C-alpha cells in the first residue's frame, strides 16, 4: 500500500512537467528554449505589456469566459435541481443528451454549429461562441452541482416548508445557500474551460479573437519565450480563479461542519430559522 503511494510522486511530476517547462522558460534569459538555463530575466514579461494583441486577446477571453461561466453554472443548477424531481424517463433523456454532448468530439460539434448558424443566417462571433461553449461545458457544471444536490439533506428543505416557507423562499433561504459552494465551483469550471478552449473558438469566434487563438496563430510559426510568458500569465489567472473557489469552499465546509455532525440533533429540533438563518448569515 505504501509502495502504491510512492507511485503518486512520479505521476504528479509527469502531470506538472509541461506546466513547469512553460513557466521555467518564461523566466529564462535566452531566445532559444534549451537547457542548460542561461539566467533569470523578466524581459519576456516586459515585452508582454507592449503587446497589444495579447492584451486585447486576454480581455476578449474574459469577456467570453465570464458569461459562459454564469450561463453554464446557472443552467447546470437548474438542470441539477430539475433532475431531482423528474420522472425517470425524462431524467434518462436529459442525462443521455448531456452524455452525448460530452462524448461527441468538440470539433465535430463546432463544425455542426457553424454550419447551422450559417444556414439560419446568423453570424459567428461573440454570442455564437458564448452559447457554444456554455453548451459544451453544461455536462461538467451539471455534474458538479448535481453531486451537491444528491448530498443535500432534504430534511432541511422539508423543515422550512413545514414551518410555512413558500417554495421560493425555501429555495432562496435553504437550498441555494447550501449549494453555493458547488455553484461557485461550477462557475469557475465553466470559466476556466472557456479560457482553455481553442477548438470551439476556431470554428465559431469569427472576427472575435480570444487569447487561445492569438497564441495558436503565433506559435504555429515559432516558439518564442514571450509566448511562454503569455501562457504563464493565463495559468496564473486560472489558478487564481481556481484558488479563490477552493478557498471559499474550504471555509464554508469548515463553517458548516457542526451541522452534518449531529444529524440526530437536527432531526429532533428541525429549526429552519436556525439553520437557514445561520447559513444565510454566513454568506
Amino acid at each position: 500500500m505504501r509502495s502504491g503511494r510512492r507511485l503518486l510522486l512520479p505521476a504528479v511530476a509527469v502531470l506538472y512537467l509541461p506546466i513547469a517547462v512553460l513557466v521555467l522558460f518564461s523566466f529564462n534569459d535566452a531566445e532559444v528554449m534549451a537547457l542548460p538555463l542561461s539566467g533569470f530575466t523578466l524581459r519576456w514579461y516586459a515585452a508582454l505589456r507592449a503587446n497589444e494583441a495579447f492584451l486585447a486577446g486576454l480581455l476578449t477571453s474574459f469577456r467570453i469566459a465570464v458569461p459562459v461561466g454564469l450561463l453554464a453554472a446557472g443552467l447546470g443548477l437548474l438542470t441539477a435541481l430539475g433532475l431531482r424531481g423528474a420522472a425517470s424517463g425524462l431524467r434518462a433523456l436529459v442525462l443521455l443528451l448531456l452524455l452525448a454532448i460530452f462524448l461527441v468530439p468538440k470539433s465535430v460539434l463546432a463544425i455542426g454549429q457553424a454550419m447551422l448558424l450559417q444556414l439560419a443566417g446568423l453570424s459567428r462571433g461573440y454570442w455564437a461562441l458564448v452559447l457554444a461553449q456554455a453548451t459544451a461545458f453544461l455536462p461538467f457544471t451539471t455534474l458538479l452541482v448535481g453531486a451537491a444536490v444528491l448530498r443535500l439533506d432534504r430534511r432541511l428543505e422539508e423543515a422550512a416548508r413545514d414551518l410555512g416557507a413558500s417554495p421560493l423562499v425555501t429555495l432562496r433561504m435553504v437550498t441555494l445557500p447550501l449549494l453555493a459552494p458547488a455553484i461557485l465551483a461550477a462557475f469557475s469550471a465553466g470559466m476556466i474551460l472557456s479560457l482553455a478552449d481553442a477548438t470551439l473558438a476556431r470554428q465559431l469566434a469569427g472576427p472575435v479573437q480570444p487569447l487561445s487563438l492569438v497564441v495558436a496563430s503565433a506559435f504555429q510559426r515559432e516558439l518564442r519565450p514571450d509566448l511562454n510568458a503569455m501562457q504563464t500569465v493565463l495559468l496564473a489567472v486560472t489558478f487564481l480563479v481556481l484558488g479563490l473557489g477552493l478557498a471559499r469552499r474550504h471555509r464554508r465546509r469548515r463553517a458548516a461542519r457542526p451541522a452534518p455532525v449531529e444529524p440526530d440533533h437536527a432531526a429532533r429540533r428541525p429549526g429552519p430559522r436556525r439553520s437557514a438563518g445561520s447559513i444565510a448569515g454566513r454568506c
Partner: protein
Amino acid sequence: MSALLLVPGLLLVLAMGVAPLLAMALIGFWSVDEMVLVPDLSARAWLEAAGSATILGLLGRALLYGSATVLLCALLGYPIALAMSRLPPLLKGAATVVLLTPLYVGEIARIYAWRILLGVNGPINWVLVESGLLDEPTRVLLYTPVSTLLALVYNNLPFMTLAIWIAAERVDLRLVEAARDLGGRPFAAFRRVTLPLTSPGLLAGALATFALAAGDQLTPALLGGTSGSTAMSMIDSLFGVAFDWPLAAATAWLLLILLLGVALLVLLLTARLPATRIVLGGGR
C-alpha cells in the same frame, strides 16, 4: 413542476447540440454546385465518404489513436487511481486538484509545452544526451506519432484516472482483506476482487477517453507533423477550405457512427464480464 427547471438547459442542448448534429446529417444528403449548397436528396457525399480510401484510412487512424490512448491511459491510470483511493482523506482533496490541473491548462498551452519538451534541442533530449543514454538528440520524439500519442495520453489520463478512482472509492477494502485472509495472493485478490469491482469505472473511463482521443484534432495537427492529418482535420478542410459541406458532414457522421459503434461493441462485449467474474469467483 420541477420538470420546468429542465427546460432552459434542455433548450440550449437541443439548439446548440442536437440541432447542429441533425443539420449535419441532413446536409450530408445535399449537393454542391459551383461552391453553392443545393438542398437535395443525393447519396453522393455518403457514398464518396464511405468509398474513399483516404477517408476510411483516416477513420482507421482515429480508431487506432483512440484504442492506443485507452490502453495506455488504463495501464497508467489504474495504479494511480488505486493509490489515490488509499490516501488519507486530507490528501484526497489535494490529489483531486493535482489530477485535474492539466484539464484546466489551455489545450494550446499544453501542445505548446510538449513542443518545447520534445524538440531536438528540448529538455528531454538534453537529459538523454547528457546522461549518456543517447549519443546525439533523437528526432523521433517530435512531429511523429510518438508525440501525438504522448500528448493524447497526457490529455486524457485525468478522465480515465478519475473514472477508475470513483469506482475504487466504493470498493470495500474488507473484501480485499478477506481475500488475502483466505489465502489469496495479492495478485489473485486483485484479479478476483479489486479488478471486477472497479471494472465499471474502467469501462466508463475507456469510453470517454476513446471518444475524446479519436475526435481530437488540434493535438495531432500541431504535434504529429506529416502523420498529423486525421479524420477531423480532413472534415475541417472539407468544410473550411473546399466548401464541400455535404462530404464534410457525411464524413463527420461516419466518425460519430464509428465512435458509437465501438462504444456499443465494447459495452456488449463487457456487459456480462464483471458480473460473471464476481459470480464465478464468489461461487468457487
